[in-house]
């Protein structure tokens, strides 16, 4: 937990504690990248969802490294445990188990380079932004930030919190209306 050293000047030895933490950090980042790659490149939709779940799990690891274990747990509980499963569930219910070929036919020569250049531009912009910005260092919240999260949710962001709950309520009612239409 304490090992998120900001910009070590000398790379730590591989078999020291910092080195191990670094290796684990690289593993989580690799998990994110690999999961995202699977998610966009898989032909079968369920494999894409599995990739998405891998990506979410890696993101939880990144949150843990950012000293927010609460967010990491929530990422696992909500995104992996609920969102990914609901997507997979929806796909399994709706589409037959066949590789999706729709959308592949209208590919022209321009699509690849265009997409690549757009992605490269975004990446370059984000990199420049990340390197040039004067990052402010915020004080650490401590191992358990859940009390701070709860307090700010119910005081500073109370209005937003209530609005979100109203949106969720409307979504539930909408889903019920859609699901019950046609039933007698």
């Amino acid at each position, binding site marked *: 937990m304490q090992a998120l050293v900001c910009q070590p000047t000398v790379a730590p030895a591989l078999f020291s504690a910092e080195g191990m933490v670094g290796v684990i950090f690289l593993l989580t980042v690799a998990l994110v990248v690999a999961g995202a790659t699977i998610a966009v490149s898989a032909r079968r939709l369920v494999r894409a969802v*599995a990739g998405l*779940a891998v990506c979410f799990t890696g993101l939880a690891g990144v949150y843990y490294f950012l000293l927010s274990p609460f967010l990491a*747990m929530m990422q696992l*509980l909500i995104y*992996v*445990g609920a969102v990914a*499963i609901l997507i997979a569930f929806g796909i399994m219910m709706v589409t037959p*188990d066949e590789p999706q070929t729709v959308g592949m036919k209208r590919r022209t020569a321009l699509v690849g380079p265009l997409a690549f250049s757009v992605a490269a531009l975004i990446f370059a912009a984000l990199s420049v932004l990340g390197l040039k910005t004067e990052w402010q260092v915020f004080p650490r919240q401590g191992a358990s930030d859940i009390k701070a999260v709860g307090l700010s949710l119910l005081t500073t962001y109370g209005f937003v919190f209530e609005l979100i709950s109203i949106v969720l309520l409307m979504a539930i009612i909408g889903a019920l209306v859609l699901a019950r239409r046609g039933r007698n």
Partner: protein
Amino acid sequence: METSIWRALLYLVGLLAFAGVNAAWLGWCERKGAARIQRRIGPCEAGFAGLLQPIADGIKLMSKQLLVPQGVDGIIFRVAPILMMIPAITSMVAIPFSENIGARNLELSVLLLFALASLGMIAILLGGWASGNKYAIISAARSVSQNLAYEIPMLLTVITVVLMSGSLNLHDIAISQQGGFWHWNIFRVENGHFLTMWISFIIFFICSVAETNRAPFDMAEAESELVAGFMTEYGSMGFGLFMMGEYLNIVVGACLTATLFLGGWDCPFGLTPGIWWFLLKIYVLIFTFIWIRWTYPRTQIYRLLNLSWKILIPFSLANLMVTAALIKVF
């Protein structure tokens, strides 16, 4: 001490051994329990009282061919059983076995256990889908809808315990119940615990039976309808891993119940608290799981979902509100 590599290694080996021994011998317990309830003898040939049966089963499963049928999704088919085991074993990290025995004393261990429990669902879903078998897919869909339905009342009742003890740390929750059974959350008299906690316990226990896909809620592997459910296409150790994962989930569920409601490692009458009381409690709970499985017939899937959505969720919501009000009153 907390950062010593030997401590980490010791816990790694110890927890893996605990998980492995439980996963193997709970199968024996289940077969013996089922046999006794049905007036049979159960395994008795291999070793004393059939105690070597799990080893024989393991050798048999490992020596069988790892069959991957045609038409399955190869990678996911192979990954799913492993994915079932990983969260179950990882959960052991956060469980406080006694005051000083516990791999990590995490601040958010309750959340961690539920986050990991939700990962097990993905294994069943992917395993069922990758099999490319109608029975398996129906079973996976049933299992996921069941798990999603029962996760909600389970989390809602856990919130009542968290509210009462004011902590998300299992170790702290257990410590707050020390000193005899009248301090345990389920029997506690002070602060209005007695009004809601036993309701929480009943809801939580029903949900944990349903979450682990056990009879009478084992819709996912209803033999009479779905062959063997999501495990239909799995043979040899793939099937073995699913079974072991199921037993480990039961162990984790029993540990959670014992810690949240039954005082963790506390002795009922204030004598020598320690890991033995914790183990006694979880094995009594596991015996109850087996007892329930072989006593009640299987329900139907819509009854199962109705029980959760129409009875357990409203009750647990009301329970949560009453608990919050009680905290204000007392």
